[in-house]
């Protein structure tokens, strides 16, 4: 499905990586490793099409993602270092809007259930800016519960989460893989996921 060909990424004077090749199929998880500054975030953003690679290409079902933007985006969920939620809106509103922006109309119960699953019961109506760091991250992660995409790109999804939330997220990822989804993630924490095929790419090398 996803194929990365001879990818090269340059930031300023530094060439972060070069000649990177890998593929990812349905049901597979790619754990991207690397020291701080190795270029994990840059790679993920390139995979999303947010950054232009210096060289090489990213193919989705055999076609370059640059020529295929809408279709690719329909299959993709990206969670970056930033949460992508609006501080002035409540968790419910945030999720409602983010799903209707991708063209899905969700019932309020569905959203409430997702928030409940993420351990945010009782905080659904607060403007998210007053939430704690971990609670904000949970709101962002609730998008995964509500999306219908197959390909998740998660940049350090476990930061700021407490142990329960980490466990829950691991189960969620495992379920997604079992349902033939695809995941690429980075994390510095030790995390073990028991499902699908796990690949690793290390950028520090």
């Amino acid at each position, binding site marked *: 499905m996803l194929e990365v060909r001879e990818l090269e990424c*340059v930031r*300023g*004077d530094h060439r972060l990586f070069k000649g990177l090749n890998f593929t990812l199929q349905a049901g597979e998880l790619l754990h991207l490793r690397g020291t701080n500054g190795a270029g994990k975030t840059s790679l993920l953003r390139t995979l999303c099409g947010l950054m232009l690679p210096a060289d090489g290409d990213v193919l989705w079902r055999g076609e370059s993602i640059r020529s295929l933007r809408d279709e690719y985006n329909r299959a993709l969920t990206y969670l970056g270092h930033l949460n992508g939620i609006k501080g002035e809106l409540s968790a419910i509103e945030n999720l409602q809007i983010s799903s209707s922006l991708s063209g899905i109309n969700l019932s309020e119960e569905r959203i409430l259930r997702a928030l409940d699953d993420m351990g945010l019961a009782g905080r659904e109506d607060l403007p998210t800016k007053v939430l704690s760091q971990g609670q904000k991250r949970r709101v962002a992660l609730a998008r995964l519960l509500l999306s219908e995409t197959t390909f998740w790109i998660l940049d350090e999804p476990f930061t700021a989460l407490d142990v329960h939330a980490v466990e829950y997220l691991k189960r969620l990822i495992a379920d997604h893989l079992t349902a033939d989804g695809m995941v690429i993630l980075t994390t510095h924490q030790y995390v073990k996921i028991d499902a699908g095929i796990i690949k690793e790419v290390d950028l520090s090398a």
Partner: protein
Amino acid sequence: MGFKNSIIWMYFSSPRNFYPLAGKLIPWFAGLAAIFAIVGLYISFFVAPPVLSDQKEYYVIIFIHVAAAWMSMFIYVVMSVYAFIGLVWNIKMSEMMATALAPTGAMFTFLALWTGALWGRPSWGTYWVWDARLTSELILLFLYIGFMSLQSAIDDPRRAARASGLLAIVGVINIPIIYFSVRWWNTLHQGFSVTPTQTKQLVDPAIFWGMIIVALACWMYTIAVVLARVRTEILERERQTSWVQGLVGGQK
């Protein structure tokens, strides 16, 4: 032939290959600029009819003014074409050319405004009026300044080049407005003296050729300066590559 051309084009679209070529071309264009400048100035001061009944001696300013005004618009168009190529086909060399052109374009724009204002004072009786020609030329200066400030405000050179390139492309609308403003509106500024077809003979041939040759001098000067600037730009943006490091190391 088209094939061969495109090979050459691709070859020199690589900064590494363009750098030495530019180095070789600079002296030629500089030389041409000097020759044209000498001939042009000779024509303007000695061959062109020395006194026009109403324009007095200061009409000699025409030679600088017209050349600068032409160049200001011409350079902008070239710059935005480079920017477009750079943006769409992602060609670095093209981005660098656009970057290198801007300061010279701004200089000529400023020169056109300045000489125009100086000339306007004795001939029209004012330095400045807000007519369409003058206003749109001023806007051109702002566009150049905007281009350069945007570029210097963004750290990442590639992003800077792309962002300012986009600005250049959007601003190109202004060029036909400058050019045709004298036809479209009633302006205090005079209309076309020199039309591409020259059907109406409005300008004394000596003056006409003087203007053309000074413009050529400006053009050659621009090419020489821009090539020099683009060379430093190449060194700046390619400094992490081995060939530049070899080059710089070798010079030490």
